[in-house]
């Protein structure tokens, strides 16, 4: 067996199919995108090579691209530092509840995660509707009669409203991960910490969270990736508006390539987006690995 796996040809034969899939599914499309990013192609008809003009324009003179990246960063931070701790705390509470209650509540919290994103987005667009939406109606009921906020189109509230929908939809997943992770923590560890005099909070902070670090790392990496690739929800609710306040890169490059007829520019955006996404994922993984080693 050792000799078999030491044979170069065998290794090649085993690696080649997977590699071929990778090359055709990833490298070739990115290569094409990089090439078309050097053109002024509208998506059909003739085109000209314009060198790095698209890339330079994106990096130096396109505030929407930077706004889209900033929004992804804001979403990432909100997910990691608000959604995750909340999901962890709730998972910790659920793990101590009687099984029947815990199961019921877990199902309730997980419902948004199994619903179609289109349904969820339309649901919230209707809730946020200033004229007939339930949110403004509730505010009126509790006495705030003058409040008539257009949650998704008011520059002051649009990003917050969009982030809320994303967090609401993703909360069930985070909860599921943390709950499953907590179930794998041996009860002896917590009991030992309690015997040593640690309280509930201290036991979680000093013992359980460090034990769960691999789960936390995985959730953070998923959060980073999903923050970057936000598309459908934005497209169905604000399309990046008002202005570009809720713009995300995937929506922006789609609008450029397929609506504005700037296919070359859209491709250049997608290449830069890949670079940013890979770079950011590597940085996050390095930080997490360092923390993991330190544990």
């Amino acid at each position, binding site marked *: 067996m050792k000799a078999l796996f030491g044979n170069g040809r065998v290794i090649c034969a085993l690696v080649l199919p997977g590699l071929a899939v990778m090359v055709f599914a990833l490298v070739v499309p990115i290569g094409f995108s990089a090439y078309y990013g050097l053109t002024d192609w509208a998506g059909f008809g003739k085109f000209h090579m314009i060198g790095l003009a698209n890339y330079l324009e994106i990096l130096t003179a396109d505030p929407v691209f930077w706004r889209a990246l900033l929004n992804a960063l804001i979403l990432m931070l909100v997910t990691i530092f608000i959604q995750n701790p909340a999901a962890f705390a709730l998972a910790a509470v659920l793990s101590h509840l009687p099984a029947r209650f815990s199961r019921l509540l877990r199902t309730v919290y997980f419902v948004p995660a199994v619903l179609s994103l289109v349904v969820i987005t339309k649901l919230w667009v209707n809730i946020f509707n200033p004229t007939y939406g339930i949110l403004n109606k509730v505010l009126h009921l509790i006495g705030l009669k003058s409040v008539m906020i257009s949650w998704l189109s008011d520059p002051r509230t649009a990003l917050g409203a969009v982030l809320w929908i994303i967090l609401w939809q993703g909360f069930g997943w985070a909860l599921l991960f943390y709950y499953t992770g907590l179930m794998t923590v041996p009860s002896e560890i917590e009991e030992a910490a309690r015997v040593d005099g640690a309280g509930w909070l201290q036991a979680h902070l000093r013992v359980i969270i460090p034990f769960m670090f691999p789960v936390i790392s995985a959730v953070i990496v998923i959060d980073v990736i999903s923050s970057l690739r936000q598309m459908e929800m934005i497209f169905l609710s604000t399309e990046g508006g008002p*202005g570009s306040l809720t713009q995300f890169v995937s929506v922006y490059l789609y609008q450029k390539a397929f609506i504005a007829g700037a296919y070359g520019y859209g491709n250049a955006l997608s290449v830069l987006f890949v670079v940013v996404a890979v770079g950011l994922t590597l940085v996050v993984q390095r930080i997490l690995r360092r923390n993991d080693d330190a544990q």
Partner: protein
Amino acid sequence: MKKLIVVMLALCVAGGLWAQSITLKMGDNLSDRTTTWGAVVEQINAEFKKANPGVEIVTESYPDQPYQQKIKIYATAKQLPDVFKYWSFSTLLKPLVDGGFVMELNKADFAKYGFVPGSLESNVWGGKLYGIPVSADMWVIYYNKKLFKDAGITTLPTTIEDLEALAPKFKTQGIIPMVTDGKDAWPLSITYDVLVERVNGDFSRQQAALDRKAKFTDPDFVEGARQYLKFVQSGLFQEDLMVSDYGASRNLFGQGKAAMYLMGSWEMGLAADTNFSDEFRSNVDAFKFPVLKNGKGKVDDLEAWYGGNYVISSASKYKDLDLKYLKYYAERFPGLAWERQATFPAQKVEPRPSDSPVAKKLLKILADAKKTSGTTTIDRSTPQFKEDHQNFTRELSSALITPEEFCRKLEASAEKASKQQ
């Protein structure tokens, strides 16, 4: 043996039928096939199929924006429908013409179908005809007569100032004064066009700016932007204007929740749309876009153009049949569209006593027009300029930029577009 012969004969007949059967692929932006315009097209298709046995018609329909994207993708993939509805604009048809995707037509073939003067010309690029126009588009304000009466409004506003003053009267009744599609932004960009004309009284200024003979930062454009911002923020429109799409805004009006609907004459079919109540349908009417008290524009200066058209794919295998269909469409469409009061055709129609009030009014608005705008500004330049114009108008509508910044951005985009064309 007998059985074998029967089977073989059956196969021959089936094969013969198979060979005769032709499927014409079509595309349009008329998702509702049971009422108004979509129903007219279905009737034309049914008649055409009956007159041409063995011809099948398969139609793909989507709302405007997804449809335009779909056509671009089909063009790239060389899978355009044989015959499809599109728009004559430089932002939409010209890229297809430049790419050689659209078949050239013979103008003489369509001379006898009563097209309104100038309408066929809107489909001419480089001296060649590429499509037939289907609708005459005018920018008007639809209104619900009953809701006006309920609010105690007896005279229609003739100035924008009077129009803006109506907002509180409707709001106290729990009615939205006016709705339009703000999400897609093109109605907002068209409204900016109209307001600039209401300031300077000159429809040619927009083209001059695109030709770089004037600047979008000139005082009349800046004043137009100021008037636009004032108009959008006057409380007339629905609170969620910027996220309210075509269907949502149309429904608010059709369901009697809004008193006015700022839209084009293609919505004439509202009066015949059975999705809405009889009460609504009998109360829908239209009036001319008002003027500014201190502006140079007149109420009979009409924002009007010939937008929608039908074209044939140059890659179609059945070009003769496609052309036959197009001629049949040109022959049948104006009569059927007017009979059903579905839309305002780009061909001569005979007014009838039974026409709906809104149809009569639209005919009058067109007859009263002293001058017309032609194609809207957003569709006179590049697709990127159109996208920019719409985005800047969105930003201005949300007061994220000032009228002066809006004009500066428009100027920079027009400068860039002029170098690309």
